[in-house]
């Protein structure tokens, strides 16, 4: 009886994720410097078992407001809005081919695979119907895709030989700073059989980081300095013009 009990337990035990997949990035930091116009980050790895690979990159979560324009007295203005929490500042998914390897809806939602499965929740529905809330949610995802904050398989995954794979994703200049999570999943027969995560740090460095920090942490000083610089510049300009 005891043996049968243990056998049943083992049958239902969750499988241990073997190191069936590994991945890394060409660089784990993206430094936003003064000449930053965006950065392409390269991801590469190997799958030790057979299966399809899905790569996910997610930036820090934020609360965003989506506004919709309406018309009044002939003028278009922001008439409606809805706030959503848990919105990723950056999201990219990459897989080979045109179709995502099949997975259960439960897995897709749990790991937030594909933009439509993001766990974005309205902060306050303001009594709007679920259809309206859903339309705002869809619009938010669409807008994020348009401004390159969400990349829905824009760079497809490349498989090299049996085991190796690589892909890249573009961090735009308006990407938020913080810790990004890069995850690789190995999928076989509709189930995730292995996974690994690796971090990416996006930060501002150099003079513009100092300016940014100064503006936010010492706002009053920053204001006085801005005025001072402008006044001196004006004075110098005047002096230069006089000599001519």
């Amino acid at each position: 009886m005891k043996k049968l009990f243990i056998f049943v337990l083992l049958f239902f035990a969750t499988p241990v994720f073997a190191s069936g997949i590994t991945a890394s990035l060409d660089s784990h930091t993206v430094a936003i410097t003064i000449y930053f116009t965006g950065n392409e980050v390269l991801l590469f790895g190997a799958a030790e078992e057979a299966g399809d690979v899905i790569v996910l990159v997610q930036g820090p979560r934020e609360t965003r407001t989506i506004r919709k324009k309406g018309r009044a007295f002939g003028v278009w203005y922001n008439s409606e809005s809805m706030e959503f929490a848990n919105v990723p500042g950056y999201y990219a998914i990459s897989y080979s081919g045109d179709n995502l390897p099949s997975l259960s809806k439960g897995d897709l939602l749990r790991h937030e695979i594909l933009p439509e499965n993001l766990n974005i929740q309205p902060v306050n529905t303001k009594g709007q119907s679920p259809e309206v809330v859903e339309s705002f949610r869809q619009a938010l995802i669409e807008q994020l895709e348009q401004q390159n904050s969400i990349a829905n398989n824009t760079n497809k995954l490349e498989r090299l030989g049996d085991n190796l794979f690589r892909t890249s994703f573009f961090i735009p200049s308006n990407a938020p700073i913080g810790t990004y999570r890069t995850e690789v999943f190995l999928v076989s027969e509709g189930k995730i059989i292995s996974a690994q995560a690796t971090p990416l740090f996006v930060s501002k460095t150099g003079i513009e980081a100092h300016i940014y920090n100064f503006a936010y942490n010492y706002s009053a000083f920053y204001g006085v300095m801005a005025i001072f610089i402008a006044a001196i510049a004006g004075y110098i300009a005047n002096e230069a013009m006089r000599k001519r």
Partner: protein
Amino acid sequence: MYIYLPIAEISVNAFVLLGLGGMVGIMSGLFGVGGGFLMTPLLIFLGIPPAVSVATESNQIVASSVSGVLAHWRRGNVDFKMGGFLLAGGLIGSTLGVVIFSILQDIGQIDLMISLCYVVFLGTIGCLMFVEGVNTFISTKKGRIKRKPHPPRWIKAMPMKIRFRKSKLYISLFAPLAIGVFVGVLSALMGVGGGFIMVPAMIYLLGMPTSVVIGTSLFQIIFVTANATFFQSYLNQTVDVMLALLLLLGGVIGAQFGTRLGDKVNGEKMRILLAAIVLAVCGKLLFDLVIEPNNLYSIAGAK
């Protein structure tokens, strides 16, 4: 060469900014205007968030106004007493303006407000300038001399009159105070120096002699825009010093060329041309307001 602006948080082409500063600088040298009312909409058209455009433009105007006022001061063309009252009103007005700005930003209607203000004021001033320019052109041709404008009766009736020696005026101190407050609020909301409202107000509402008007106006503008810059930095963190410097650089070089160019061309024709440009910018902003936008949805900045 692209430069990443720390507060605007976008990358722009540095040469485009220098060119923009230069172009507006030429216009300011040519017409004697601050140029803020052209620069701010142009920055917004470029993709810089409206809030940052307005606040940073206030910063840039401090520089060009300092440069301008020094030249006028040397010629004795600044009425400091009148300027003092104007700027007292201006400080109150611009602080109030920045607070209103914050509130509008929070409810997501700041873009609308900025556009509406621009359409109303550019439209009104543009029309008035155009009409005035055409009338002057016609009367100069016919050889008629223009009458010196007198302040309207309701201004003359205001209490607490004091003497302003430089402007040769005896007028209520509430007049410059009130004008100052009004222009201050607009200045903070629109990212302008306010000269294009201040100068006609000084000539037609206060009756100040034209020789003193520009210098005194610039004097007042320095403090009002400095105040707006300070509060925009402190309350809203919307001043991008990097952007301001780039625009400044182009601006002072452009103003040099503009002034030299201005010596060679016909004054009245230039005024009509400026009025036409003002009306064109106004038209574009109005068009953008009433035309169905390509995209009904927009996302506010992250929190």
